[in-house]
């Protein structure tokens, strides 16, 4: 699970997709492709975007939902908490307690 997560985050295009989904959840594949090409000038095929979405979904960072005939993609930030808990959790209350 952790390997999938870090692999998903390692790619700049996938991070851009997460940025865009953070701005607005519930996007169609078409909207994600439009944002990548128009806002970020990424010349990337729809098939390649689909593959990136599959990697994000496998890592739990992206969820898809069907609504009637449409399919929407939502951001799921829950897996990112694993990162916070792994290295930051013990640190959060640290600085105050360490203050002499």
């Amino acid at each position: 699970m952790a390997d999938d997560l870090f692999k998903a985050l390692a790619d700049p295009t996938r991070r851009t997709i997460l940025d865009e989904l953070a701005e607005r959840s519930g996007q169609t594949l078409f909207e994600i492709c439009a944002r990548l090409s128009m806002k970020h000038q990424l010349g990337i095929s729809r098939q390649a975007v689909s593959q990136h979405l599959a990697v994000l979904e496998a890592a739990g960072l992206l969820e898809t939902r069907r609504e009637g005939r449409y399919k929407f993609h939502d951001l799921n930030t829950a897996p990112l908490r694993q990162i916070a808990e792994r290295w930051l959790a013990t640190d959060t209350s640290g600085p105050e307690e360490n203050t002499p």
Partner: protein
Amino acid sequence: MKIHLTSVFVDDQTKALHFYTEILGFVKKHDVPVGETDRWLTVVSPDEPGGTELLLEPAGHPAAKTYRDTLVTDGIPLAQFAVDDVKAEYERLSGLGVRFTQEPLEMGPVTTAVFDDTCGNLIQIATQPQ
């Protein structure tokens, strides 16, 4: 050569005529019976009565269903119409119950939105830079 006609497949021509005229605001140009049940049915923009016609074509061919269903799933519009103000049009159409799969999105100089035409297609509206 000029583009004088383009088409979208529609599930039901009567329903399509209602949506494209009463909701979107186009006007009927031609309505001619073809065969037993089909019509040669076109609409045009009231701003350009002599402009490009949109044919509301019966989606009877079996391949049309697969084609359109797959595109709708991925949110891909089949046609694009120009509007002066995408956000204003989004508000107007939403108020009339139109379902948008993409709310207005500013991408540099272009703003777009995508809605369901209730006849089996997604349609994009766009404001282009003047």
